[in-house]
């Protein structure tokens, strides 16, 4: 049987964080919250969303022996005047980002454009390395991402985050 995997999101102060398991969505907005309501917490034009700090969490390996090669991308276009940045990168990955309180200031972690199609190789690490793997339950490095807008940004685009990994039986 295949491994059981969920996407988790960490929120709150780094001194007392909360980890929400198996999030239902990755709504981006003006609040540091999992499963946030984008109507109640919209991004003002010219502002950034709060960073998202998310993990791919293998809760059970099933009969698999190894999980590796995590690739993250977005499908669907943002509106004009908005960009989506991340720490994920196939070529310039900077290692494991240690959790700290999410901010809507310009993220020092989310600095690369979020891929809009599946990357050719891993862009999110395990244990700090793109070549890392999990052989028992555990989590990837944090995926940090943020939407940044200009004053000309308009309301409302909906896209999908995708996560892919290789699983060895």
């Amino acid at each position: 049987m295949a491994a059981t995997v969920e996407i988790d999101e960490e929120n709150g102060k780094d001194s007392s964080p909360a980890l929400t398991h198996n999030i239902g969505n990755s709504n981006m907005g003006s609040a540091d919250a999992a499963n946030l309501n984008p109507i109640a917490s919209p991004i003002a034009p010219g502002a950034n969303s709060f960073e998202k700090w998310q993990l791919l969490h293998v809760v059970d390996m099933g009969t698999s022996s190894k999980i590796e090669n995590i690739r993250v991308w977005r499908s669907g276009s943002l509106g004009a005047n908005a960009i989506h940045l991340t720490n994920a990168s196939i070529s310039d990955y900077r290692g494991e980002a240690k959790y700290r309180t999410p901010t809507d200031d310009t993220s020092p972690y989310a600095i690369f454009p979020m891929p809009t199609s599946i990357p050719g190789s891993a862009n999110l690490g395990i244990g700090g390395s793109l070549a890392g793997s999990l052989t028992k339950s555990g989590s990837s490095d944090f995926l940090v991402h943020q939407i940044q807008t200009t004053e000309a940004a308009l309301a409302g685009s909906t896209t999908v985050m995708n996560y892919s990994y290789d699983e060895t039986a």
Partner: protein
Amino acid sequence: MRTKVKHICGQCEESFSSELAYLKHLCPASGRTPRNLETLSPKTKVASVLEKKILAAVQMARVAKKQYNA
């Protein structure tokens, strides 16, 4: 390590003091325990069929921005 983390189920919103407690709860929203392979959610069933390259799709990265003249 990161011992102070509070754990929350993203499906039923219940809070837990440990990851193990989360993993053991029978979730009223999903109808399964998080690592219970006997009663997979439909999404996970789809994933298990794909085997090698499983897409764990997190539904919406929704981007909502205020109408700037609103």
